[in-house]
């Protein structure tokens, strides 16, 4: 399989997973819209690396439910078409994650 087709396949597969999860009521329509938008931005290479890294940190962190919901709400409120919104999203999520680290130490 050539690289181009492999990338297309990952994209199609991921999109299908997102919608499948939404149809099975595991994602809200807001979450679905955010993930679709994020997927497109990743494949167009138009999302800042810092935003992806903050998402990775969030997923790797062992967080309590409350802080997880707050960070998620922050993420969903981020407009991925607006650089300023992405920047402030990154800052607030980083702050929330570091607060959490401090409180668990």
């Amino acid at each position: 399989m050539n690289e181009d087709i492999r990338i297309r396949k990952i994209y199609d597969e991921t999109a299908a997973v997102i919608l499948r999860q939404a149809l099975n009521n595991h994602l809200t329509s807001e979450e679905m819209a955010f993930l679709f938008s994020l997927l497109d931005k990743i494949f167009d290479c138009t999302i800042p690396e810092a935003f992806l890294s903050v998402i990775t940190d969030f997923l790797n962190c062992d967080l309590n439910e409350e802080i997880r919901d707050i960070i998620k709400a922050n993420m969903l409120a981020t407009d991925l078409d607006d650089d300023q919104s992405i920047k402030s999203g990154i800052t607030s999520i980083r702050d929330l994650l570091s607060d959490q680290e401090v409180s668990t130490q």
Partner: protein
Amino acid sequence: MADPVLRQLDEDNLFDLESERRVLSSMLHAEDACVEAYNTLTTIDFYSPRHGTIFDLVCSLFEREIRPTFVELLKEAHSLGLLTNPRDIEELKYIAEHYIDDENIKYWIKRVKDKSRLRKFEAFLRHSFQMVLERQDIEVEEILMAAEEELTNLTALEYDDHIDSPFDLAALGYDEVERRFLRFKEIKELHKGVLPLDGLPTGFDTLNHITLGYKPGDLIILGAQTGHGKTAFALHTSRSVSVDYQSTVLYLNTEMSRQQIALRWGSILSGIEHERIRSGDINETELSIILEGYSRLRESGFYSYPCPNLTPEKTISIARKFKAQKNIDMMIVDYVGRMDKVDPKLQEWQMLEQIVKTLKMLAQNLNIVVMCLVQLNPDGSLQGAKRMKNESDLMLKLAPIPREELEENEELKKYRNPNYYIHIDKNRDGRSGVRIPITFDLQKQIMKDAERIAL
């Protein structure tokens, strides 16, 4: 009575679902493929109703200028309530995963189109066979004539092929004469003898008067030597059509950057020397005049597409896309000499001939005006000129007026500062062989009819 002949027909031979999936998949992954399929296929070319629906959704996204990715398709289908269970998603994913090499899109489209035509032929056979079985009293001549007509329609390759019946042609002729009669009356009564245009304004009063404007379906060729105003003419035309007349123009430029084109507009719309704008040597008043010019450009219908490696194929694709999405009235190609050769074995004149033919076809199929700029040889001639002339509806040449002529020609002395001629070499709808004196201010990139001195 059963039909033993048609019963033997293998139904599987009448459709090709794999090709349909490959076309749809390619539309989701490559814009060029999307443009090609959008312009070549229709919903009924798809055997599977599901495929037809997906084709409609993708076309609808494309028309709304939303890149029809798989995500957008899922979103659209979901919002319309077409995806209700995971099986539907799997089916769409299955279609999307029929990846092809984007260059092969025409092959797959042809397969879908061929099967579609075959189904129509099969329906024709069935229908004819049924008629012979059921209507034994029918006139043979009548059956054959009806069959011939149906078959002729089927074998016409393009959906837009149209044969005028005597009735159609007479009605068209009547409408055209009536329209002209009413217009002539209007000219006399309202416009005090000034002819209103039939097409887009040319940017020159005299040229407007002779041509009645650039009409949809027209191919206009403008030739000029290097450094003698090809791009200035193209942008002057663009200004007239898209800024002053508020129609939509697509401008393809093969040699200038976005910045260069944007700066030229600053000069054209402000009347301030191009060189000064380029170097920034302007005062604050001039700056605000230039900004005011750009605000007019912002409200215009001018779309620019700088494209250094333009090919005839790419031109078709871009024109179709902009026709579908922006409903362009005119396309300007600046200039054809820099277009890439599709076949390296072709001589330059052969390539130009091929490009010009393509552009004429494009003008007619999309019902837009196409203007293409060509380079004249130093002696003012044009390679392959005869063939180009045949294809064009209007052939213009832009050249400086020789100094001796300026000094000796009494007619030119009736004008204020004429320095260039627009020579009408061919005009399908009117007078040709005419030379129109104009004033071309190279510094300000502005062209206008040379002003007549009041006697």
